[in-house]
């Protein structure tokens, strides 16, 4: 079954753009949450990751901070 993938991002952060590109290239569907316009989601992201940097990826509850390509691959089984 497909994993539930959420990305917390801002429209201007270069690594957010790359991470989304990477997910698309690998045909992963994901929910993109813009924390610059959604304050509740921003708080949720800070709670989940214990930090304020974007991007943050939530794959079935596993939280990955930043564009950690190898870790993302492992968690997604790519």
């Amino acid at each position: 079954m497909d994993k539930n993938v959420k990305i917390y991002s801002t429209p201007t952060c270069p690594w957010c753009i790359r991470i989304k590109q990477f997910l698309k290239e690998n045909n992963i569907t994901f929910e993109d949450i813009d924390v610059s316009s959604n304050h509740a989601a921003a708080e949720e992201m800070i709670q989940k990751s214990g930090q304020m940097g974007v991007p943050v990826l939530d794959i079935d509850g596993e939280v990955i901070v930043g564009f950690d390509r190898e870790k993302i691959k492992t968690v997604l089984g790519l």
Partner: protein
Amino acid sequence: MFDLIVIGAGPAGITASVYAARKKMQLLVISRDIGGQAAWSGDIENYTGYQFITGTDLAAKFEEHMRKYDIALEENETVTEVKKTNNIISVKTDKGTYEAKSVIIASGKRSKELGVPGEKEFKNRGLTYCATCDGPLFSGKVVAVIGGGNSALDAALQLTKIAKQVHIINITSALGGDAVMREKIEKSKIVTILNNTQITAILGDKFVGGIKIKREGREETLAVEGVFVEIGLIPNSEFVKDIEKNQIGEIKINCRNETNITGIFAAGDVTDVPEKQIIIAAGEGSKAALSAFRYLAQSRL
């Protein structure tokens, strides 16, 4: 064996790779990221042809231009050593080793750290080096920008659209940077400029809650929830040991972008070229590629 390896994919590296691709050189680009510092810039109003473009969009245009050519690209890879033996230059990375007849180093610069207590602990917990990326998370908050040059002004300007109040902590007696940007900053009602002021510590519990500053010999505490560090840059040049650099670690080049090692060229912010601008880095990248092309033709490598 490649004709040319370009290290870095910022404005200099990308432009070099486009020129080299058009000369049909066998080419490899190795980079940690794409767009370099341009991608982290806010609003750009001085890149000819664009009266206004964001750093994100300009970096995307650069990448699109590069991808028009069939250029081999190793992304997310960090170069750890560049060495020339006989006429072969080997480029070692965290993932492998590559060989080429010529190399262009366009690895750019990275943010300088403050070196004050609390900096490491609060990194990404209210302290950031990228206003463009993380700025939106500080909406409605009181923040401090540390620095007084163009990048500090750029960060402060971005934050005026987001934050409740922006303090600029500037160690010198007056703000530097472009007059146009200074005027915009001085007009903003939510910006306070603290000149002759030094930051001495980052305070907080789990996240940043304040900073300690020192002005006129007195220490005081300023309540802020965000700290944006913009105190300048250092060159990414540690991986080349045998190359001549200036006092601040910038690679020395001549007007043809040649370093002291034949076959190794450098371009953009990592070099001692006067003035660091996106358009200058791009121009330097093209020069370096043409020099590398000429070098290969003349030395018949």
